[in-house]
């Protein structure tokens, strides 16, 4: 099977890969580009641990074809921190103990970031709605919701 070249911006850097036509973005990110922040949980779009942003919108990378990402902006949890400075969401997740095993955390952060980028002052219900596609099996939803609400109040949330 001939490989297809694909180029997109990953966390602000131009990246390219040769992919098979049916290859998922999750596979390309993890196996070709070495970004292990998005996880494989179900491969069926049920758990949300593979959530990434494509042009600012949350997408399930296990159900997204890599070739559909040509020329687009892909962002993962790996790109949230600015060097050593954590994104306010990351800082608040730490502060509020909003991770146990940590496996759902990159997807949670990504879904929360998509919400706050559009709606800097969400209500509690809007936060719950925004992360409703992300399963946390350690059942730590309360601290996660609290952390996202706390981050919404943070100065510096809307960094360029």
């Amino acid at each position, binding site marked *: 099977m001939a490989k297809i070249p694909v180029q997109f911006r990953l966390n602000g850097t131009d990246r390219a890969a040769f992919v098979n036509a049916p290859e998922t973005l999750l596979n390309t990110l*993890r196996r070709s580009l070495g970004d*292990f*922040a998005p996880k*494989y*949980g179900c491969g069926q779009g049920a758990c949300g641990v593979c959530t990434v942003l494509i042009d600012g919108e949350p997408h399930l990378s296990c159900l997204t074809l890599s070739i559909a990402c040509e020329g687009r902006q892909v962002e993962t949890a790996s790109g949230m921190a600015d060097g050593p400075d954590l994104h306010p969401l990351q800082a608040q997740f730490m502060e509020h103990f909003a991770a146990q*095993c*940590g*496996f759902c*955390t990159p997807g949670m952060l990504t879904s929360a970031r998509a919400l706050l980028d559009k709606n800097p002052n969400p209500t509690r219900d809007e936060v719950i709605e925004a992360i409703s596609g992300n399963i946390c099996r350690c059942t730590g939803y309360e601290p996660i919701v609290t952390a996202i609400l706390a981050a919404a109040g943070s100065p510096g949330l809307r960094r360029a």
Partner: protein
Amino acid sequence: MLELRKDLFADERDDNLNVVGKGIQRQDMPGHVTGLTRYFDDHAFDGMLHLKVVRSPHASARIRSIDVSAAARAPGVKRVLRAADVPVNKNTLLSLINFGKDDEPSLAVDKVHYKGEPVVAIIAETEAQALAARKLVRIDYEPMPAVFDVEEALKPGAPVVNETYPANYFEYHERFDHQKLRFGDVERALAGADMVLEHRYQMSPIEHAPTETNGSIAAPEQNGRFVVHSCAQGLFFALGTAAKIVAVESNRLHFIGGTVGGGFGGKVDSLTEPLAVLGAMVTGRPVRFVLDREEEMLYGSPRGAERIYIKDGLMRDGRIVARQIRSYFDAGAYTRLSSYAAIKCTAHLPGPYWIPNVSSDVHVAYTNRCPSTAMRGFGITAVDFALEVQMDRLAEAAAMDPMEFRLLNAYRDGDMKPHRRKASNTALIECVQVAAEKANWPISEQGKRQSSLAGGGAGERSQIPATVLDARGQIGRPDTRNAGPTQTLPAGTSRIAPSKQPVMEGARDGRAAPTQVPRYEAPPATVAPPTYAAQPAYPPPPPPYQAPPPYQPVAGQQPPPYQPPPAPPSPAPAPATQTQHGAVRFSSVFGRRR
């Protein structure tokens, strides 16, 4: 929210602590929020191969033949593994602490015992190629009768689930088909009670459903070692299990893990590590064996189902005078950790209540269901559900408030437990008081004044009563299934001398005697079943792996073979050859019984 009730038991606590009660940042948190935490699958290897297993579609079947020729020729397939390729294809997890007999193959030999049991493993260049080749394996099954109910499984004549335990129960101390607890005279107390309530409780199997499925990656390292990135909750447990099954010294395996993407007990079974290591050995390349979501949900071992019968003797004033429990733990087809669950269950009985007469029989039964394993309080969670529902029913029968009823029957410091240990650091009364306060549940002034520190150990509460013993459930003695009392231990007896007599007397219920079950040996090549189709020539495996010396069963892993009992000896036969039973390591409660 966390609330420290420092007003309770204030004099029992040292508040000069550095960490407890203070908020401390977890050391793994920065990795979690930056996506830098590396789980087992977050490792890249050049030339990594993918392993997938073919699973049994039957709950119970004989394997007539296995034909892997088409699968072995399929595109990308590097190697097909069958039972005979696994150096030590029979293991039980707790054999690492010398508890129980090896009963579970990594790949089924001539029979399958549950739906989803791995039979053949395929190693291919890509996951898609391994999945495609999986469809080409032809296995001819002859379905056999299956049993899915714990009590049905224990009836004479039930289909044998697991040949290692042919009567479908785990054998405790080579003596009994269950875990026993005896304290006082339950039958007499039940006869003298104002009311007797008996109810049956059940709990289904529960899948852990971690967001990260079970898996591991094994890769050749320098000096003939193998690095294994594993999801295991017990990393050294997985290392020991893999070393045993692939028959290498454990220092040749380098396990890396500790970052578990949700475990809850479902990642202690070493479901993938042994075959991944074996795959890396026979191919000389990194091998990744990961369960997909469907496999995880269907065949990742669940919390075991339980059935619990509780029969209580109750007085009109609300005192419980007797509690008799019969419980069945569904191990599924193989033991894994279920033998330990029954020990935990027995140690937990009769719940946090002082009851002067207690007896319990907790059985581990094999059925043709997916083997069950650890999960968050396994062995205890279900029995607590049963006990607390029963407590509510008893309270109703005694026309008492359920909170007051628990205060009345709660353990207090100094009470004698049925395990012949004094209760200490009890706190049920305080928990009930605080819970009632939080829930605005009215309790009496008298109830509010109760304390775990007062009233415990008064009079008979601190005594070990005369205890009626029975020989019920002796292994190989079906006539003892419902046997009556055999003797009464005098009051105050805290220990009984271990019996030097072997109790297994072979088959009396028409089944093979447990002691005659042979240890697993690789089937001789001349014996017909299972017949494999001729294998195509494999490409010669790469050289770095040096074949280890053939596996020798380690002396002491198994109790010595059964010897017919000598005529009743006046001096006890030398116990020196008896293997120290691993149960002593689990529970001090049972530690002195042998």
